[in-house]
């Protein structure tokens, strides 16, 4: 695809073949994404419904599956990759993750510290 000129309305056979090929490849991407997301959903739901692990382990598995599934969605549905020409968008997302970590992490740290010291009723 990279080398095409802007106004390509070409009807060459090879082009059509190539388009069909990339289309199939992209369809596979979505199918992979769907399958992986499905598995990463079923694992935590299954564990909570039928498992008998300790609460701590279950939380870790839920968290890990959630993070993995977010990555899967970004990779397979939103097409965010490490490719060179999309760097500024990756930068945007990584910066957002940084700010989210600061804000969410900071909030939890500050408030649970407060609860622990001053408002034990609010501890879950």
């Amino acid at each position, binding site marked *: 695809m990279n080398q095409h000129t802007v106004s390509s309305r070409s009807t060459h056979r090879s082009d059509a073949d190539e388009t069909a090929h990339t289309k199939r490849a992209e369809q596979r991407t979505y199918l992979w994404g769907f399958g992986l997301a499905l598995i990463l959903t079923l694992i935590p739901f299954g564990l909570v419904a039928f498992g008998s692990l300790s609460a701590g382990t279950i939380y870790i598995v839920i968290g890990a599956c959630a993070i993995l599934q977010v990555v899967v969605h970004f990779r397979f549905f939103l097409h965010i990759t490490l490719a060179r020409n999309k760097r*500024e968008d990756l930068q945007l997302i990584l*910066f*957002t993750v*940084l*700010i989210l970590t*600061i*804000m969410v992490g*900071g*909030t939890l*740290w*500050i*408030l649970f*510290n*407060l609860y622990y*010291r*001053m*408002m034990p009723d*609010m501890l879950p």
Partner: protein
Amino acid sequence: MNHESHWVLGRLDWSALPFWDALQHPTTMNIVNAIIASGAGAMVILGGLIAAAALTWTKRWRWLWSEWLTSPDHKKIGIMFIVIALVMLARAVIEAVFMRLQQAVGLDGGFLTAEHFGQLFTTHGTIMVFFMAMPFLTGIINYVMPLQIGTRDLSFPVMNTISLGLTAAGAALVMVSLVLAPFSTGGWSGYPSFTESAANPGAGVDYWIWAVTLSTLSSTLTGINFAVTIYKKRAPGMTWFRLPLFTWTALCTSILMIFGMPPLTVATALLALDRYLDFHFFTADLGGNMMNYINLFWAFGHPEVYILILPAFGIFSEIFSTFSGKTLYGYTALVIATLAIAVLSFTVWLHHFFTMGQSAHINAIFGIATMLIGVPTGVKIYDWMLTMFRGRIRFSVPMIYAIGFIMLFVLGGLTGVILAVPSVDYQIHNSLFLVAHFHNMLIPGLLFGMLAGTNLWFPKAFGFRLEERWGRRAAYCWIVGFMMAFFPLYALGVLGMPRRSAAFFEPTYLPWTLIAGIGAIVILVAMLFLLLQLWVSVRDRELNRVPGGDPWDGRSLEWSVSSPPPEYNFPVIPEIHGRDAYMRQKESGGGAHPRPDDYTDITMPANTAMGAIIGMTGFLMAFGLTWYEWWLVMAAGGATLVALVARGFTRQRTRTITAAEVHRQHDTWLRELASLRPVTRAEEQSSANRGLPASPVEGAVQ
């Protein structure tokens, strides 16, 4: 929620009139306060009537609509933002004067009721932050940034009109609260549980919530618009490290807007849920926790401080370099310092509530982070001083503001470091020391920056320079007035006077509050001088015309086009070869204004009523929510949705300016340029300055 409401008027009734209370309980105090409040309300109505009458008299309604309100031109939108800012500045300064006078005579009483005083400091703070500072800096960035990066418009011009509409709606809501009172008494930060309906069931807090929400939405959209523009629409060759410093600060401010505004949206939305739908986020009972609000508010509030200050840093950088006739010293260091400040500003919000009750090590960490921000800021101060070093400095009005800034801002920064020490903060938090500190940052920092920027770029926008003498008088009055009004507050704070006190009972405060009161009067005089400056400048505009477009021997691209610039900014998009792009062009052999080989058709966004519509429906929705007029909320909400969907169906979104027309206009200007006499920098402030600078004197440091 608590009392039955009229189906049309909601809970709006006679008691909303500012003099109603005095009619019911005619004590001296009530009557004095009613006269002041009604006078303010009458001025709003009168101002509106005069404006309407003037427009009708000069038959300018159609002109206002088609040339301004529906214009997607970033330059016009920028000017409208600044007009909002100046109107709101005038109101908030008058409120400040009333507060200072109240405290000057506030021993054992004063003339304002506590309720009235509470409304004054709440509207003063809310207006200064959301409806003066934000529109002012948004307006200046709107006007200047696209010109500096060599583009014809922002990425999303229609969204820009919507941003303007939302800010205007919020400002209008605050103005309406003078006529249909009251406004909140909860301060600009609106802390619960005081602002919960249990303590404050009236319309005041709701006015505050919706005015702030409108402003927040506007700023979020603005931030996205600016950031995408700077990312995607730079002229060819305008690489990151060739951007003018003002554009860098505009970018960092937009990033802070994008990520710093959402916490406030969340905080005010949750407070609204508490008040309207009986949620329990911040209530004192049923599992609510007001510290959640304070945490969210300052997660916004601290980035906000840097949203306000960074563009001013950018403006001062341009001024120091332009009026010293030198390239900016330490450009790379300044860029890195700006970026560092932007990121660090997200890591310090806890210093606004050191006394909450968290453990000492958390306080220590946030205190250290706070002091760290002083480092990049210090780098900037040194860079600016070194830019002036050995330069040919001209003391024009922008430079006076800039030098006032650099001295006063350092003092404010030092008091900030004092406040960043948690153990000290335990002693002086919530005192006037804090008030003195943040005014010390925001008046010399933000406000001087904006006024300096106005003096700097006014000739670009309107084609004539602002008058210098009155400008200087205004600048000196600002500097002196600021020092007199706020340095005493440091002393008062250390003496233990709490902020937001309507009255006090400690005679030792009196001399200090008196000096501060006189300082406030000097600031009021400064405001009058600003008005006079504008008046005289408009009167003598023919004397001060700068058709050449470059009155200060500028360095960046905005000076390369005519004053005022054509609506498409650049007849041909320039190609950039280095920093200080226009200065480079002037020094190169090719001449300052090369004639392009050929012109092409230019596509510009077509006029749109979207901003006016969304602004109007936004205002009506907010007003309906404030007074529980649910029919109005639903009607205005529905109209908003219909307008947005209908906009999707339109296809006539652009119009074209032909190459021939561009050619003709450019030719006219080039001919005019050829007829101008170039002036040296010594003549810059005289009427010989027609906007065409002579080549620099031999041997001058460049």
